[in-house]
């Protein structure tokens, strides 16, 4: 079973939640789903991040019972739903609160589905809707998700995986996405703009990791993005 097969099966199994208005797939699977035919060739992690706007939390909760056929909430961290079958990926629920500062984070507490709300996800807005595994899935606009990946402090292996997701988004971004990125970047306060550029320099110097895409062939793209954000548009 390929990674794509597992991703598609996971989306099909999580369909009731994914089709709830306002819910977005965020995180590492977005570049995979943005590839033509959702080819899913950029494997950096084995999970599906589901962004739930806190304003839609109650509506999403109503669908959780339908997901219990295929997943079960982790006792240690109930926002993580582990698959009952090895042919599915883990589902991680994360909170989106457009009113929060991008550097903020808080816990939206709930007995059934607590959420860690990442302020950086306030930079994410809804983009295209695609059909995968019989489910209609809403993806974020690439520019916002790219900025979310770059504005967040990244450390360790998880941080490197997130930067590879940013690279995947950068590789699939079109001119309009880059213009949107410029505009959103310019609205950030200086400290966060610095964080974005700093993370791009870290991304530029990443070493390849076993089983993940080699970032080195894309270093020129990263350098171009840095120059672009610094205002030196070629």
């Amino acid at each position, binding site marked *: 079973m390929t990674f794509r097969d597992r991703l598609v099966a996971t989306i099909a199994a999580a369909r009731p939640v994914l089709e709830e208005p306002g819910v977005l797939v965020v995180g590492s699977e977005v570049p995979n789903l943005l590839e033509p035919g959702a080819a899913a060739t950029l494997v950096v992690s084995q999970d599906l991040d589901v962004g739930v706007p806190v304003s839609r939390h109650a509506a999403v909760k109503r669908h959780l019972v339908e997901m219990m056929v295929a997943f079960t909430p982790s006792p*240690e*961290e*109930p*926002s993580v739903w582990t698959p009952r079958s090895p042919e599915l990926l883990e589902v991680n629920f994360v909170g989106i609160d457009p009113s929060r500062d991008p*550097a*903020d*984070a*808080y*816990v939206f*507490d709930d*007995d059934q589905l*607590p*959420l*860690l709300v*990442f302020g950086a996800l306030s930079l994410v807005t809804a983009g295209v809707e695609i059909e995968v595994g019989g489910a209609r899935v809403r993806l974020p606009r690439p520019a916002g998700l790219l900025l979310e990946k770059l504005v967040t*402090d990244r*450390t360790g292996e998880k941080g490197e995986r997130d930067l590879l997701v940013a690279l995947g988004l950068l590789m699939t971004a079109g001119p309009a996405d880059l213009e949107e990125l410029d505009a959103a970047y310019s609205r950030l306060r200086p*400290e966060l703009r*610095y*964080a974005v*550029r*700093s993370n*791009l*320099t*870290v991304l*530029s*110097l990443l*070493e390849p990791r076993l089983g993940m895409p080699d970032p080195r062939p894309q*270093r*020129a*793209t*990263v*350098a*171009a993005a*840095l120059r672009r954000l610094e205002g030196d548009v*070629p």
Partner: protein
Amino acid sequence: MTPALERRARELRARVLVRSWAYRQRHHARGVWFKLRRVLAEASAAFVVAPEDAAALVAEGCRVEPVGESLEPRKVIVFAAAERVARIGSARAVPVRLGRDVLEAQHLVLTPFDLLP
């Protein structure tokens, strides 16, 4: 109810505090690492060269990157065209990353990327 999530939120806020401190220090020693990474990000390749070869490049007009002078011991870091570096007998290619080779080098020549269309 959600100690694991509370712990992760605390850790995330702590990292933000550290990052804010690093940002305030960006014009001091702490900021050197960003500046060095920023210079290396523009390099398609890196070479350690002999002091006299680095001096020759500077004499030819290659700009010395200021970040090298912020380090101790100081480094001479210059960009030069790949064709020019190919004529430097002492040039030894090293990985473009913050690894031992780059950190130990005292005379480093970087080649730029061709500008993307």
